[in-house]
C-alpha cells in the first residue's frame, strides 16, 4: 500500500500539490487523471523521489520512503514513462536487465526473467538482440513495461506510458496491460490525461485538479458522489456510454433463446459499447450471443439494467 499524506509542492507561484492525501491499495491500479498542469505527474514523481515535496509524507507498506537512499528506493519501484526512454545503445535484453543487474541478480536468473517477461508481454524471444530503433512504437512500449517489471517490483509507477503510441496500437497495448495486471496484481499508480484509458485500466480513478483530488471512486460511479461542476465538465455528458466499455456480454443477465439462422451474432467477449452499437443498427433483427454452448438474446433493456446496477445501484 502506498500512502501519501498532506503532500504540498509549489513551483514559484504555481501550486502543483495542495495538501493532497491519497492511498493506493495493494494490488489495485489507481489511475490519476486530470488536465495537463494539474500536478498528477508531480505527485507520481514524489513517490520515487524524482521530485521532493515541500511538505508531506509517503509510506510504502507502512515504511517511510525516506528510510531508503533514493537509488535503493527506485530500484524497488517499477517506472515506466511516456516515450519509453529505452537505452538506444543497448539491446532489448540488456535494457530489461538494467535493474536486475543493479540489484546484482545472478546472470542465469536474469536471462530466465527476460524470457519470462517477453513471453508475458507477447513479444517473441528473437527480439532479445534487437536494438530499440528496430522496434515499432508499440513494441518499444511493451519492452518498456518489461523493463519496469524486470525486478518484480510490487509497486509500479506509470507516467502516461502509452501516450506516444498511435491510437490503434494504444488500444492493443492497453488491453494487453489490463490482462497483465489482472494476472500480476501489482500496486499501480497510473497517470494519464486520457479518460478512455482511465476507464479501461483503472480499478479506481482519482480526478485531480489544481493540486487537489476532486473525486476518488471506481470508474462506474465517477461523478456520482457529490455534484461538482468541474467533475461533470471533465467526464462529459456521454460518460455512461464510455463506462460500457468496461463490461462485456458475459457480465449481463441474459435470457436464453433458441438460435436461428437469421440472428445476428456477437462474440460473448464484446464490450457493452460494441453490443449497443450493433443493437442500434440491427433494426428488427434479433441479436444473440453464445456463452457455453447456450444462445442468449441481447437486448437494450439488459444493457440499461446493467448500467443502472453498476452506476447507480
Amino acid at each position, binding site marked *: 500500500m502506498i500512502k501519501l499524506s498532506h503532500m504540498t509542492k509549489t513551483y514559484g507561484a504555481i501550486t502543483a500539490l495542495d495538501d493532497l492525501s491519497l492511498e493506493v491499495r495493494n494490488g489495485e491500479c489507481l489511475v490519476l487523471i486530470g488536465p495537463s498542469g494539474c500536478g498528477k505527474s508531480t505527485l507520481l514523481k514524489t513517490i520515487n523521489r524524482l521530485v521532493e515535496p515541500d511538505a508531506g509524507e509517503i509510506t510504502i507498506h507502512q515504511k517511510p520512503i525516506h528510510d531508503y537512499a*533514493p537509488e535503493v528506493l*527506485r*530500484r524497488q519501484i517499477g517506472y515506466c*514513462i511516456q516515450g519509453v*526512454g529505452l537505452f538506444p545503445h543497448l*539491446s532489448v535484453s540488456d535494457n530489461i536487465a538494467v*535493474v536486475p543487474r*543493479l540489484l546484482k541478480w545472478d546472470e542465469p536468473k536474469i536471462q530466465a526473467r527476460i524470457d519470462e517477461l517477453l513471453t508475458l508481454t507477447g513479444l517473441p524471444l528473437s527480439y532479445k538482440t534487437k536494438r530499440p*530503433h528496430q522496434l515499432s512504437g508499440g513494441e518499444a512500449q511493451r519492452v518498456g513495461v518489461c*523493463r519496469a517489471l524486470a525486478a518484480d517490483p510490487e509497486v509500479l509507477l506509470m507516467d502516461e506510458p502509452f501516450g506516444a503510441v498511435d491510437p490503434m496500437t494504444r488500444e492493443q497495448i492497453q488491453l494487453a496491460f489490463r490482462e497483465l495486471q489482472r494476472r500480476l496484481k501489482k500496486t499501480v499508480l497510473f497517470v494519464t490525461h486520457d479518460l478512455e484509458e482511465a476507464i479501461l485500466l483503472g480499478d479506481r480513478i482519482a480526478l485531480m485538479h489544481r493540486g487537489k483530488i476532486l473525486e476518488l471512486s471506481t470508474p462506474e460511479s465517477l461523478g456520482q458522489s457529490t455534484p461538482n461542476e468541474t467533475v461533470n465538465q471533465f467526464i462529459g455528458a456521454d460518460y455512461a456510454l464510455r463506462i460500457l466499455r468496461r463490461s462485456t456480454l458475459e457480465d449481463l443477465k441474459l435470457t436464453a433463446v433458441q438460435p436461428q439462422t437469421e440472428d445476428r451474432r456477437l462474440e460473448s467477449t464484446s464490450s457493452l459499447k460494441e453490443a449497443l452499437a450493433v443493437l442500434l443498427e440491427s433494426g428488427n433483427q434479433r441479436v444473440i450471443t453464445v456463452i457455453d454452448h447456450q444462445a442468449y438474446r441481447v437486448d437494450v433493456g439488459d444493457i440499461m439494467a446493467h448500467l443502472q446496477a453498476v452506476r447507480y445501484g
Partner: protein
Amino acid sequence: MTSGRLRLRLAGLVLLGSSFGLPVGDFKINRIMRPIPVPLSDLIGTFGVILVVFIGGVALWTLAKSMSSFIKRWIVWGLALVPGVLIFGLSTFIPAGVEFNPEAARMALGAGTAGIYLAVLLAITSQPSSRWLIVVSIGLPIGLAVLGQIPMIGIVKEYQNYKSTFNAEFIRHLTLALSSGVIAILPGILMGYWAYKYPKSSEGILSVVNLFQVAPTLSLLGLIMIPLSLLSKQFPFLKSLGISGIGFAPAFIVLTLYALMPIVANAYAAFKQLDPAVLESAKGMGLTSRQILRQVSLPLASPIILSGIRTAFTQNIGNAILAGLVGGGGFGAIIFLGLSQSASDLVLLGTLPVVIMALITESLFERIQARLERQLRGAHD
C-alpha cells in the same frame, strides 16, 4: 549523380586549360635564377598535347555516360597514374639550348601540373569509393621520389638538401600537433560536461573557449610569449625545463587552447542532445548519477564528442605550422624558411606533408567513428 557530372565537366575544362595554356613545369638553372616555363607541348609536342586532350576528353566522357563499371574502373585507375607519369616526364626533360649544371638545376612543378592533377582528382572523386585512387595518385610521385627516379624535380632537390632537417621537423610537427591535441581531450570533455551539467556556467565556459578560437592564432602566440618569458626570467629552473617565451612551450600551449574549443563545444552539444526520456528513466530506475554518466550519457554522447576530437586534431595539424614562427619547429620552420628565400619548392616541401598528414588524420578518425557508430547502433540492422 549530378554532382559527379559537374565534377567531370569541370575536370574537362581544367584539363583543356592546363594542357594548352599553362606551363607544366618551370626549369631553373639554379635556385634563384628566373625560371624557364615548360609547356606540355615542349614535353610531348603539339600533336601529343592534342592527342592527350583528346584521350582525356574521351575518358571523362566515358565516365560521365553510364557504361560498364568495369571500363570505368580501368579509366579511373589509369587517371590516378597520370600525375606520377607527368612528373616523371618532367624530371627527365632537358630544355634545348640551355647551359646548366645538373647539380644546381631543377624543375619546379608548374601551374599546369597542378591543373592536371586537379582535373584527375575531380574525375576520380566523381566515382564511388575513390579513397584508394587518391592514395595512388599521391603515392606514385612520392614513391618515385623515394626510389630516386625523379631527382630533377625541385621539391625532391630541396628534400635532398634538407633531409635531416625535414625528418627532425616532421617528428617535431607530429609531436606538437598530437600531444597538444591529446592533452586537450580530457579537460575539453570535462568542460563540456560541466557546461551541460550546470547551465548557469555554460555561457561563461563556452564564451571563454570561444575567445581562444576567435583570437587570431598569431596574436594568441604573441600574448602567450609575454607571460612565459616573464616566468622563465623569474624562475630560471623553468628555462632549464625548456619553458620560455619562444620555442616549444608557447606553441604547445596555444595549440592546446585551440584544440579545446571544438572538443568542449561538441561535448556540450553531445550531452545536450541526449533524450530527456532516456535520462529520466535511467534515474527513475535507480541508477546513480555516476552510473548514468558511465553507462548512458557517455556512450550515447561519444560519437559527437569524437567528431569534436577529430576536428581538433585535423585543425591542430595545420595550426602547428605557426610554431615555426616562434622557434617551435615543425614544418612551419621549413615553410617560413622557404618564404624568406622565395624558394617555392621549399615552401611546397613544407606544405605537402602537412596536407597529407591532415588527410590521413581525417580518414583515420572517420574509420574509428564509423566503427563506434556501428557498435552503438547494433551489429545488424
